[in-house]
């Protein structure tokens, strides 16, 4: 059996067990401590809400991973790309375009942005130390942040593309009273899953996807077989831009399109540390763990310690990972032959 399948199998088995153990732990705690409220139905409800929130973290983290894999650059500007994409989309919708059309046009803008970044920033800095490229992306962050507001104004904008927001009850047969989920979160999760699936197929089975993986593995060798790095960079930044657009739509519909969108990138940082900077599955699983973990911790542990766990939980988890598994859960396997 190959190691990937084996690992996947172990995870599939271990995850429900782990969750059940945590649930049991809370149940025990609740039995001795009256400040805590616990029923299994409520636990699952909180867990699901957290997972759905986690999908959004994953989407942002995914943008980071794509660029990091292909060019080794930690793209500080990913968050401002989310903001910029969302602002642009809202701008076009306000100009009277239907949201689908606005989506296509904005995707085009993100591709254009990728081309400009490659030409103006990446190309002149190629072969410079990574820290220099990193600083350049900080520059891109502030530029996009300001440029987006210059173009589209700095008010908080509403983004409504008609995703239903009504709460609904599911699994009423299993848990008493059923479980409350938000339809919007459900839609967001489905869209996220679809996007990830498309990306996975693209990377695995297309010529360009294969070339992207080749570049991620070995720049020099990729050059030597005639893969044009510049084209690959434009493609990767474009894909990251479109992922940012999708993330921007989801976050923007939820919380309004405003500057704080650019800051959700910092929530993606612990996700990356957890999942590994080079792993797409890592970004997804990391996002889910952090989303679910912080929600569950906030609701069940929060009352015991006075709340506000959500603000630091992700970073603490990341810190623990840095100490014990710095390459993350799925960080690039360093191939060592025996």
């Amino acid at each position, binding site marked *: 059996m190959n190691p990937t399948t084996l690992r996947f199998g172990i995870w599939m088995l271990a995850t429900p067990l782990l969750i059940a153990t945590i649930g049991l732990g809370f149940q025990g705690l609740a039995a001795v401590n009256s400040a805590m409220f616990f029923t299994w139905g409520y636990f699952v409800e909180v867990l699901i809400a957290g997972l759905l929130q986690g999908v959004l973290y994953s989407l942002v983290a995914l943008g980071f991973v794509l660029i990091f894999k292909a060019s080794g650059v930690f793209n500080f500007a990913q968050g401002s790309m989310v903001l910029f994409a969302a602002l642009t989309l809202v701008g076009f919708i306000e100009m009277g375009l239907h949201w689908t059309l606005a989506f296509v046009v904005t995707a085009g803008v993100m591709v254009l942005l990728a081309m400009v970044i490659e030409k103006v920033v990446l190309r002149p800095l190629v072969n410079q130390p990574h820290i220099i490229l990193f600083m350049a992306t900080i520059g891109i962050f502030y530029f996009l942040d300001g440029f987006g507001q210059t173009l589209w104004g700095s008010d908080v904008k509403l983004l409504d593309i008609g995703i239903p927001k009504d709460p609904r009850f599911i699994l009423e047969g299993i848990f008493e009273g059923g479980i409350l989920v938000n339809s919007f979160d459900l839609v967001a999760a489905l869209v996220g899953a679809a996007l990830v699936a498309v990306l996975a197929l693209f990377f695995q089975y297309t010529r360009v996807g294969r070339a992207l*993986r*080749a570049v991620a*593995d070995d720049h020099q060798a990729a*050059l*030597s*077989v005639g*893969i044009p790095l510049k084209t690959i960079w434009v493609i990767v930044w474009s894909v990251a831009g479109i992922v940012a657009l999708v993330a921007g739509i989801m976050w923007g519909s939820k919380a309004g399109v405003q500057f704080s969108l650019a800051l959700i990138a910092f929530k993606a940082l612990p996700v990356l540390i957890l999942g590994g900077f080079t792993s797409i599955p890592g970004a997804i699983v990391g996002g889910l763990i952090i989303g679910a973990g912080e929600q569950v911790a906030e609701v069940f542990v929060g009352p015991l310690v006075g709340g506000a766990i959500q603000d630091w939980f992700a970073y603490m988890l990341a810190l623990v990972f840095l100490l014990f598994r710095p390459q993350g859960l799925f960080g690039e396997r360093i191939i060592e032959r025996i």
Partner: protein
Amino acid sequence: MSHTATSPSPSPQAVAAGPILVVNNIEVIYDHVILVLKGVSLEVPKGGIVALLGANGAGKTTTLKAISNLLHAERGEVTKGSIELEGARVDALTPNDLVKAGVVQVMEGRHCFEHLTIEENLLTGAYTRKDGRAAVQDDIELVYNYFPRLKARRGSMAGYTSGGEQQMCAIGRALMSRPKMILLDEPSMGLAPQLVETIFETVKRLNEEEGVSFLLAEQNTNVALRYARYGYILENGRVVLDGDADKLRENEDVKEFYLGLSAGGRRSYRDVKHYKRRKRWL
């Protein structure tokens, strides 16, 4: 009108027709200050196998990378001289265009894509081709034909295959671009003698059956001179000696320094280097 204008079948005479590659007095500088090649000239005839020999740090890899234009990625630059492929200057081409023009490099240390399977590695080699999926599939079979070991391991991640298999993978991947010429850097590195023979046998077959020209950099002078028809010896960024492979094999200096055979007592390296330099300057 010359009667030699068109000659459809490349007969052995046509081999001598003209060089496929001409490197003309190139100088290479790394990082704007480190002068590594100090005027290297060489020629590879169409359909030939030429060896580039020399000790560690002589500049073999640098020469190959100057030709394939991979120097740029290492902050190196060709500052003087010219490089011609079939009579046309190629110094300014990107590696991508050069592969399209028919020159591909197999880098020192193989550099397979570790996390891709062997077959995916081969497919990346066909990135620049536009002649369709079927033609690429045919060539994959062709590569498997030359390297049956690769076929057995087609689904394995390249990073988990043996050094020999990786060397085959790297050569096979280069072949997938349908090159006229392969720049092969240290194919024997780290391989058992038996496997080195196998690799060189395949190089010879590719040369004869597929018409691919080879410029190969080697430290293993003995093997290289058995398979190549012509050789250049580099030392300190200069060509110090060149000639037909069998002549080089008989040359006393080559015997002594590169083949490890010596007629008389062993002289110190410095003496002979000195003597050789003087011989060149005369």
